[in-house]
């Protein structure tokens, strides 16, 4: 009994036992306090505090018991080799190759058919397992499908009314210079692929030339100082929601791609590879803003089928 392996580590075991007991009692009090805190519907903080005290008290006491009061050793245990004897290995390997070999030689055809059958079964089960999950993506741009089965289409058509997410039609005098607004084609408010950011870049009237600072050949795509671009980042599809009026840049908050508003929203910086697709817009005689066509390319991030 005087073996040092079995003596508690604590210099004064009686005192350590008292400390461990006290710690556990504090823990018990903590749990009781938790029940009370729950009972009186106290705050989350009180619940956490009481539960934490309970668990920490109980835990500390138990650790003290295990570490300072139990026989500390050190104790030793022998390891045993994992591998079997050579004879056992030979017997095992022979059982597989020998017995298996005989059967493979005898029934080659059966084995082949079994393997092919198993493969077909896997394929047969995988088809509904995968194919039922969702629609096939539509092949190309001219598909008249909905935006739900095509990465190429949006709901923007020539003449679509620009409306806010709340459905309010957007008039030509709605925005001051420097203003931005997220718009949708009427009837598709809040739709992800259709989101468009409308910017008013200059104070131009109906008799002025259309907004000039667009890409070459697209000067007619804006109207009265307004331009409209897809709000889907061409990097990973986040909404390009930050407009820095001073530098005339659109910034995607996800991965910091920056698009130059004054130059057809070409990417100036960051991981986005392509300009934001531009939506041609116009104003009808009543002052209502309308799309003057659809996007000339797929919106959002790149994918294999994109030409």
């Amino acid at each position, binding site marked *: 009994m005087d073996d040092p392996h079995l003596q508690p580590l604590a210099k004064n075991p009686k005192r350590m036992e008292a400390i461990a007991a006290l710690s556990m009692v504090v823990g018990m009090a903590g749990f009781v306090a938790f029940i009370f805190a729950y009972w009186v519907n106290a705050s989350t903080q009180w619940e956490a505090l009481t539960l934490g005290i309970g668990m920490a008290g109980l*835990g500390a006491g138990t650790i003290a018991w*295990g570490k300072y009061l139990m026989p500390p050793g*050190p104790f030793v245990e022998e390891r045993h080799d994992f591998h079997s004897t050579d004879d056992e290995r030979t017997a095992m390997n022979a059982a597989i190759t020998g017995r298996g070999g005989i059967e493979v030689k005898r029934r080659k055809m059966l084995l082949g058919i079994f393997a092919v059958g198993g493969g077909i079964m896997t394929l047969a089960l995988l088809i509904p397992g995968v194919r039922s999950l969702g629609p096939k993506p539509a092949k190309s741009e001219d598909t008249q499908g909905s935006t739900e089965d095509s990465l190429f289409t949006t709901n923007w058509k020539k003449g679509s009314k620009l409306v806010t997410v709340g459905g309010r039609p957007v008039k030509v005098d709605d925005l001051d210079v420097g203003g931005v607004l997220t718009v949708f084609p009427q009837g598709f408010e809040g739709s*992800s692929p259709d989101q468009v950011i409308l910017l008013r870049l200059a104070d131009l009237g109906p008799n002025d030339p259309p907004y000039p600072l667009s890409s070459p050949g697209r000067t007619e795509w804006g109207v009265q100082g307004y331009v409209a671009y897809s709000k889907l980042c061409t990097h990973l599809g986040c909404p390009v929601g930050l407009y820095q009026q001073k530098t005339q840049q659109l910034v995607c908050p996800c991965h910091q791609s920056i698009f130059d508003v004054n130059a057809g929203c070409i990417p100036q910086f960051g*991981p986005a590879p392509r300009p934001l697709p531009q939506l041609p817009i116009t104003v009808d005689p009543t002052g209502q803003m309308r799309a003057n066509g659809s996007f000339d390319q797929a919106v959002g991030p790149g994918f294999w089928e994109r030409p």
Partner: protein
Amino acid sequence: MIDKTLNWFDDRLGTAKGGRSFLDKIFPDHWSFMLGEIALYSFIILLGTGVFLTLYYVPSAHEIVYHGSYVPLRGQNVSEAYGSTVGLSFDVRSGLLMRQAHHWAADIFLGAIAVHMARVFFTGAFRKPREFNWIVGVIMLILGILNGFLGYSLPDDLVSGTGIRIAFSIVESIPVVGSYLAFFLFGGNFPGSGVIIPRFYVIHVLIIPAILVGLLAAHLGLLIKQKHTQFPGKGRTEKNVVGSPMFPNFIAKTTGFLFMSFAVIFLLGGFAQINAIWQFGQYQPFQISYAVQPDWYMGWLDGAARIMPAWEWVGWGHTIPLEIFLPAVIFPGLIFNILIVWPFIESIWTKDHEYHNLLDRPRDRPKRTAAGAAMLTLLFGVFFASSTDVMANFFQLPLMDVLWFFRFFVPLAPIVAYFLTFKICNEMRVAEGIGKRKRALIVERSTEGEYTTTEAPVRPGDGHEEIDAIPVPTFIDTTDPSLATAAGVRRVIR
């Protein structure tokens, strides 16, 4: 009574023999062996709090009007997923505590796995015969990261919804099959036909946890079968394990540690707000907030996507979005595959096919340690790159400068880290007495002005001599003490 019960089981299952060797199983005493335990105990919290959350969470994108007790949201249209998450936070008693403890436990779970893995790597504990367990561990890490992502996506709030949008685009970026995979997964073009939340839900609460529980059983089973590694020391050889026994010491200490881990997680859950989704609002595909960052274990992927140059490949009527595919698919795939095959790379490289039960000191394997340091530098580099915008704001630097810094730092710093670590390891190996406690020297000046130096007296613990380890005494009986040294006879300890 206890004897009778144990005998009842032994009669039927033969539990006595294996049971005793299980109780005698030796756990080496070293603090770094607790890291895996932290992961295990946070996993237990995850299961417990997770079950609580499933009772109130509704996995549905169906739109409802919020009528709960959180005033700013009242009357707004929200999805059932979002509404029920806010509801279980504010209208279910203890719900907020459970939800935040769940989130904290997930962050700690993955953190503990990462640190545990670093311990195993740098001490060479993955070597033969433990390659299996290393691989099981890596797979658990991958599944843990995936499940963490799925889990924080479930509330359908603005931040996590943006994460789902990014996930769609990443799947979409895979050449040839990407758009098909994305459409199948989401039930159509983003945001899909309302199936993604229920699908994430069943994967998050059933499929991955079930696999994790199985792998965990394998991880611990292999550990028991193969026994622990240990650091070299007095009486420790490749053929034995020295430490404290499973019963009672380890059970007591680890149970206490379990409660301590629980305490920390619940205290964090109650005091440290995490993922305050009621402030972010319901996800809308056209809305976004500033400084969008994922949970920490996804940060390295986000950072990789940020610093990647815009290298989209277009040709022959097809597009390969390399600016997404390389950092978001190839990069993590490469990292995880390197981790999985590392034990084999190392054993082929060093031509070392022996059993290793004694651990290395990291400095004694400078190349491995340097490789590990380089890997960590790479991962931390991309991790910090995921907050370029926050850093630019904080340090008042142009965003572009911060990004260009990381574009060079991430590929170059690991090379520097490799050679630096290699050098430090080698220096430490030749330096004498390093890592040991230094004896102080006392310098005295005599009245004549002469200086003498003497060593300070031995401080408590300095001259500590470890005693020899003995087999665990199991039998409490009255065997004649004179027989106690004979083989197969255990000593008397009553």
